[in-house]
């Protein structure tokens, strides 16, 4: 086991040499293990797989377990696109039929590869791990609730380190939550005895529920804010979630340090309360204040009042 881990760490560090500054993964080059993975994907990318039955000499066609079907396009768009399947899974998988004890294979967690590596320092994996263990996902479930419950290593993409639009970040990150927390979610009921309440009912206090869901991420309100972290992982108990509108809808909107943080770091253009991201990609009542409109309206209002006051003065004087 340790040998495998060391091998993997060595592999990770080799791969890390190719990392680009923004996404952490070279997305331009051809995937490093494209050929090596073809054999695995010849079965695991399809809903039906086939093999030659040695006993009957016939070609058998079988339905693939849906949990083990992977979209190759997603895989090669993801952060682990340069990996060979056997970098993380046992090389014994290369023989078929797969040995039954391989089911007991221990899976790596994010921190097993990414922890303590300066290449990944910008992703704050240690802090993410720490925050995750404070979250309800960790405290209210057993160890089986791990990174892979939310993040699929076969397709995971880093949305916030590239040039993705706010709406794309929101959609991708919310899909992570929705995959379990959606109404009638099978995944949710698999680990919970209580029936999942409908999203629109528990969020009925939000005006324009659908707009909120497409404009901001679930984690804006459902995590604590910790600035050292790129993406917050401390999912709070529901009673601690943000419910006050002004937390976002005000001059000091918390969205600046959460959802809009990524773009703002690149393109911070603070002119009073005028903000590049707020202006270009979003509108948040109370947070967007055009400084010029404020000044001009204050001047016009003041001049009007002065005009009225002067007129009143002369009316009284000339009476």
């Amino acid at each position: 086991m340790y040998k495998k881990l060391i091998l993997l760490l060595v592999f990770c560090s080799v791969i890390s040499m190719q990392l680009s500054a923004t996404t952490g993964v070279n997305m331009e080059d051809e995937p490093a293990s494209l050929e090596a993975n073809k054999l695995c994907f010849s079965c695991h990318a399809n809903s039906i797989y086939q093999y030659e039955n040695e006993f009957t000499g016939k070609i058998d066609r079988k339905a693939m377990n849906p949990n083990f079907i992977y979209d190759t396009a997603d895989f090669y768009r993801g952060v682990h696109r340069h990996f060979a399947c056997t970098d993380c899974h046992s090389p014994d998988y290369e023989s078929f039929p797969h040995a039954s004890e391989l089911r007991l294979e221990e899976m790596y967690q994010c921190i097993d590869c990414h922890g303590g590596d300066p290449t990944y320092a910008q992703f704050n994996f240690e802090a993410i791990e720490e925050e995750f263990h404070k979250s309800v996902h960790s405290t209210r479930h057993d160890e089986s609730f791990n990174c892979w419950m939310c993040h699929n290593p076969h397709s995971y993409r880093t949305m916030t380190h590239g040039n993705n639009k706010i709406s794309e970040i929101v959609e991708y990150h919310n899909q992570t939550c929705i995959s379990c927390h959606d109404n009638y979610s099978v995944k949710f009921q698999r680990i919970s005895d209580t029936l999942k309440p409908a999203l629109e009912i528990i969020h009925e206090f939000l005006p324009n529920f659908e707009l909120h869901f497409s404009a901001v991420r679930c984690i804006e309100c459902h995590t604590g804010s910790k600035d050292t972290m790129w993406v917050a992982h401390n999912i709070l108990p529901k009673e601690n979630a943000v419910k006050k509108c002004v937390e976002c809808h005000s001059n000091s909107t918390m969205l600046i340090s959460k959802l809009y943080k990524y773009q703002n770091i690149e393109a911070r253009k603070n002119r009073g309360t005028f903000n590049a991201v707020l202006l270009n990609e979003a509108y948040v009542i109370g947070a967007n204040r055009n400084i010029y409109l404020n000044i001009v309206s204050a001047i016009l209002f003041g001049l009007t009042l002065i005009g009225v006051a002067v007129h009143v003065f002369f009316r009284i004087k000339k009476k």
Partner: protein
Amino acid sequence: MAEKLYLYPIWLRIWHAINALMFLVLLATGISLQYSNPDFVIIRFDYAVTYHNLAGIILSFNYLIFLFGNFSTGNNRFYKLQLKGLIEKLIKQANYYLTGTFKGEHTPFPVNKNRKFNPLQKVAYVATMYVLIPVMIITGIALLFPETIIENVFNLSGIYLTALLHGIVSVFLLLFLVIHLYFSTMGKTPSSNFKSIVNGYHE
């Protein structure tokens, strides 16, 4: 007793009262929303949203009453602008407000059954009722259903531009309100115009 002229029919007074009330609610809640501050809450944000939406919808329907009333009763004739000689008339009226009124002169365009508004009033009311209020209603309804707004206009958020226009026009309407209220004190007595809009008779 001076001769009284019945100038404000009941439908118009009801429309005006509803419009005035909704106008104030929209102004107060709108300012509260635009300048919301967790440390200084004028009106709680969620309440302000609800009241603002409600008042906006009522004002919009009320505007239809205004349009219908205006065109079905002939009240619209008071709003008809004659461009010929308008500038001279506006200057004459402005001069009266700036100097004439202090010299005890009579208003150059006195109210009668065919002339409810002086030229300055007429221009201000036409601009307010046929330009500013419709822009407010259209942008307001768009913001109420933001999914209908074009997402991106020249690389700027369509919602932001709509909200900006809504905000700019609201400033003009605020100025209109201040000026409207002040000029209302320039009737026969400071309170006579306020009485008129309640009982319908111009003094």
